[in-house]
């Protein structure tokens, strides 16, 4: 796909490493929170591409592993604060499951800063913007993620 190569070269041309982040946002809190960041015109880096899912509890560990395998430099999962889940307890299930994923990633030696989970409510536009800013800052020194990335020519 020609345009995708164009995107890559664009990032490379600018010189600095620009991490590519996949951000799984729950529809009710974090996606709405990022909407609020937009409405409030809060500026943050463009490195994270959001994928809206129903609930942080619907994020299967496969999604996270798969994103890394497909070359993500960082993966973010963001949901409603504990007690605020639109689906009552989806984020409780997420918290437990994602804990295991995070521990496993660290255990095999993947930099802990490559994976992040956050609670961002619909009212926390500023928080969402900061989560992305911090994540990008923390990822930059790590360079490209090649440990899990499938090498496909």
């Amino acid at each position, binding site marked *: 796909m020609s345009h995708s190569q164009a995107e890559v070269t664009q990032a490379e041309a600018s010189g600095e490493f620009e991490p590519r982040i996949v951000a799984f946002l729950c529809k009710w809190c974090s996606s709405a929170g990022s909407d609020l960041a937009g409405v409030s015109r809060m500026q943050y880096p463009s490195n994270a591409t959001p994928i809206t899912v129903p609930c942080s509890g619907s994020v299967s560990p496969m999604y996270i592993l798969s994103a890394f*395998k497909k070359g993500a430099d960082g993966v973010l999962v963001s949901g409603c604060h504990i007690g605020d889940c639109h689906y009552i307890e989806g984020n409780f299930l997420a918290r437990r499951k994602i804990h295991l994923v995070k521990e*496993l990633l660290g255990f*095999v030696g993947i*930099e802990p800063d490559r994976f992040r989970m956050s609670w961002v409510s619909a009212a926390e536009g500023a928080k969402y913007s900061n989560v992305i800013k911090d994540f990008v800052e923390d990822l930059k020194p790590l360079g490209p993620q090649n440990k899990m990335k499938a090498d496909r020519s």
Partner: protein
Amino acid sequence: MINIQDMRDTARGLLTKKEVRAVIGYRRSTNGMLAEPVVITDPAQADELIWDPTCFHNLSLYLVEDRKFLTHVRKTADAPIAIVAKGCDARSIVVLMQEHYFERKDVYIIGMSCEGSGVLDERKLAAKGIRATDAAFDGDDFVFATAQGEQRIAAREVMADRCLECREPFPKEHNAVLGENKTGRELNAPFTALHRFEELDAGARWKFWEHQFERCIRCFACRSVCPMCYCEECVVDSISFPVTGQTSAEEKANRVRWIERSATRPENMTYHMTRVLHLAGRCIDCNECERVCPVNIPLRLLNNKMEREAREEFGYEPGASIGGPSLTASFLDTDPGKFIR
């Protein structure tokens, strides 16, 4: 000290009275010292059964095979099937029942206490340069028959790590049980091997696993031997996708290719990490995966890591209760959340 004859009598009795349709146990293999799994249906075969330090297989795999076979031939069992089970094996049977793979009434568990001992790690024995033709329990020792005569070795020197670290070497869930309950003996503290590994820094850990995942040939032996890997189709490898009458063309087309077939590091890594996550809260540390791995990938470290997280962070013990909730299908209000921003 377990008298092998007691186990044989139990098996014979069950088969004679037709209380069970078969007994899954161990017999001497043709390959020298080692035991091998056997399914007997004739009471006369009961004398073939053995019990020694080479009975390391987790026979619950054959309960899974039995259930798959029955489903395939569309039959229901007329009697339970009996199985010889160590503490660890019994826990894996509990997990299978917790997941309704079969019901309690379908199985007759002949529990075997490890009586404070454990099973042999062949690699440790080979490292000592010992070639044996027979092995036997004797208190704190294993006794081997070798060409040079009988050789007695302290069991803990050649015992599998998982047995050294075992917290419950007694089958709590059982119909009959042989041997004394010596739960509470700990030869090594739980997770000793894991702790030792975790002393490495992240860079060294990555070096280690990079090497291991490079070496995997994706023969799937680990998956084939695992009683918990009973899925008809593995989510990460749709080669075994069951095409039945109900399978629609759309369903066939909609398979997700999470992982490519090529045995490269990223694919291997994703496969193993998925497997480990799918075993979290279900793996009872029989370590059959690591034992059968032809390239000796230390899979136990990965599974142990999840087991310790479950235990320490969520207070969860795999295989503890048939009626309890599964680890990842449940939660506690007190689950840790500090890692979340």
